[in-house]
C-alpha cells in the first residue's frame, strides 16, 4: 500500500473514535459539540506519558481513556439538568475552555530526542514513540484498526444488552423510561463518560501517529465532523459512524481531484443524505426492519 493510502486509512480510523464517541452521546439523546476536547485530552496524556515518563503505550492509552472519561464524567454530572441545545452549548464551551487552556500550559523538558512537553501555542513536539520503536506506518495502521475493530465488536455485542436498550429508551423518551423504572441519570452519565473515554483513546493514538500535536488541532470543526459522521451514518448500529467517516474521508478526500472541494461537497452531501435518510443511513428503524425479516425467515 502506498504511504498516501496508509495515511488516509489511519486518519479515517482515528477520526472514527470521535465519530463513535459522538454516536454514544446521541444514543442517550444529547448532542455534543465538544468531543474534540476529549480527543485532545487523550492526545496530550499519551504524549506526556510516553515522552516525559517513558511509559508503555498500552499504559499511556489506558490513562488517555481514563482521564478523558473522568473529565467527561465531571462534565456530565455538572450538566445533568441541561439537555438539547443547552447541553450542546455547554459541551462546546467546555471544549473551547480546554483548547484555550492548552495555549497557557507550558512544561517542557530537554531530552535526547529534543524538547518535549506541552509548550503552549507551540504545541507538543517530538512524540517519537513510533520512531523509537521502529513502528512503520503500516504497522501503526494495524494497531489503530485492531483497536477500532475491538471497540466496534464490543459495541455490537452490547447493542442487544439491556444496558444499551435502556440507554436508547432514555435517549428517545425519558418519560417512558422513568415510567418503567429506568433511571435516566445513570445512563446519561454512563454514556457521556464512556464517550469521553473512547474519544480520549483515539486521541492518544492520534498523538503517537502524528508525532506532534498543538491546541489548534482540537478545534470545533473536528467535533462537528465527528458528529456529522454519526448523524449521516445513522444511530441504528455501531457501524453507522464508520459509514459517515468513509463517505467523507474515504470518498471525498481520497479522490484527489475532489479533495480541494471536499468541504463544499461534504456540506452538500450531508444535506442530501439527510433529506433522503432523515435518520441517517443505518437508522434504528432500518435495523428493526432487518431484525424483523430475520425473525420471519427463521420462523418460516
Amino acid at each position, binding site marked *: 500500500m502506498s504511504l498516501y493510502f496508509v495515511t488516509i486509512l489511519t486518519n479515517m480510523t482515528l477520526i472514527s473514535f470521535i465519530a463513535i464517541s459522538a454516536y454514544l452521546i446521541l444514543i442517550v439523546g444529547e448532542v455534543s459539540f465538544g468531543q474534540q476536547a476529549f480527543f485532545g485530552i487523550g492526545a496530550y496524556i499519551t504524549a506526556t506519558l510516553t515522552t516525559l515518563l517513558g511509559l508503555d503505550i498500552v499504559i499511556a492509552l489506558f490513562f488517555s481513556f481514563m482521564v478523558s472519561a473522568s473529565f467527561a464524567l465531571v462534565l456530565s454530572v455538572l450538566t445533568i439538568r441541561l439537555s438539547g441545545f443547552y447541553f450542546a452549548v455547554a459541551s462546546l464551551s467546555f471544549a473551547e475552555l480546554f483548547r484555550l487552556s492548552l495555549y497557557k500550559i507550558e512544561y517542557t523538558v530537554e531530552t535526547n530526542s529534543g524538547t518535549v512537553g506541552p509548550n503552549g501555542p507551540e504545541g507538543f513536539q517530538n512524540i517519537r514513540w513510533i520512531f523509537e520503536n521502529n513502528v512503520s506506518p503500516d504497522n501503526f495502521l494495524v494497531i489503530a484498526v485492531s483497536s477500532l475493530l475491538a471497540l466496534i465488536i464490543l459495541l455490537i455485542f452490547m447493542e442487544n444488552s439491556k444496558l444499551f436498550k435502556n440507554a436508547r429508551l432514555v435517549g428517545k*423518551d425519558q418519560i417512558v423510561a422513568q415510567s*418503567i423504572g429506568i433511571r435516566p441519570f445513570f445512563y446519561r452519565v454512563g454514556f457521556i463518560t464512556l464517550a469521553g473515554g473512547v474519544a480520549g483513546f483515539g486521541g492518544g493514538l492520534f498523538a503517537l501517529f502524528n508525532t506532534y500535536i498543538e491546541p489548534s488541532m482540537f478545534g470545533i470543526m473536528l467535533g462537528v465532523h465527528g458528529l456529522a459522521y454519526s448523524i449521516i451514518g445513522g444511530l441504528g448500529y455501531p457501524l453507522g459512524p464508520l459509514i459517515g467517516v468513509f463517505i467523507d474521508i474515504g470518498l471525498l478526500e481520497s479522490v484527489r481531484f475532489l479533495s480541494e472541494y471536499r468541504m463544499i461537497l461534504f456540506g452538500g452531501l450531508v444535506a442530501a443524505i439527510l433529506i433522503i435518510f432523515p435518520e441517517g443511513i443505518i*437508522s434504528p428503524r432500518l435495523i428493526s426492519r432487518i431484525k424483523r425479516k430475520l425473525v420471519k425467515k427463521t420462523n418460516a
Partner: protein
Amino acid sequence: MLELKGLKKLFKGISVLNGVDISIQQGTKIGLSGGNGTGKSTLLNIATGFLTPEEGAIILNGDNITHFEAWKFARLGVKRTFQKVRFNEALILKEQLHTSDAIIKRNLDMLKDAGLIDYLYAFPNEVPLPILRKVEVIRALLERPRYLFLDEPSAGMAATDLHDFGEFLKEHLDADISLVVVEHRLELMKKIDANIIELRDGKLDNGNIIA
C-alpha cells in the same frame, strides 16, 4: 397503602390542586372524573412522581416518597400509562415492552387477549390504537405493580373498543392491584366497578375519603 395528603399545586400562580387528600388501599379501583382543566392529570402526575407538589406529601406504606424521582415510584410499584400513547416509531412492539422473552412467555395469555400476538413484530404505526392502548397497560403491568394509574385510557377509542378494553382490564388486573383511572367516560369506570370520585375546584368532592 398509598396516601396523598394535602396536595397543593400551582401552575403560573394559578392553583390547580388545592388540598387533595386520598388514601388508596390495596386492591381498590378508583375512577377519577372531573371537567377539563380540573387537575386530574396533574394529580396523576404527582401521584406517580412526574410532578412534585408545592405542598403535601405522598406516603407509600408509611414512607414519605414525595420527593423521589418518577423512576423510583415505578420501581416501588407505582406505575402509569399516558393520555397520548408513547411509543418509539422505530421499534417493533415486542421491543417496546422492554422486557425479557421469559416474562413475555409468562404473560402470553394477556398478550393474546390484547390481540398483541399478531402485532409483536409490527411498528406502532401499523397497529390499531385500541391495541396500542392495551400494550401501554401491559407494559405497565408486566412487572406486577401494586398501584396502576391510567391517564384517559379510552381517549380516541370507539364505543365498541371501549367495551373490549374494559373487559381486558377486568380480566387482567389482579385483585390486589390498586387502580386509579382518569376518565371522561363513565361506561368504562362502571365496567371495572370503580368508585367514582370527582375532582372539582382543586379538591376531591367527597373530602377525606378512604377508598
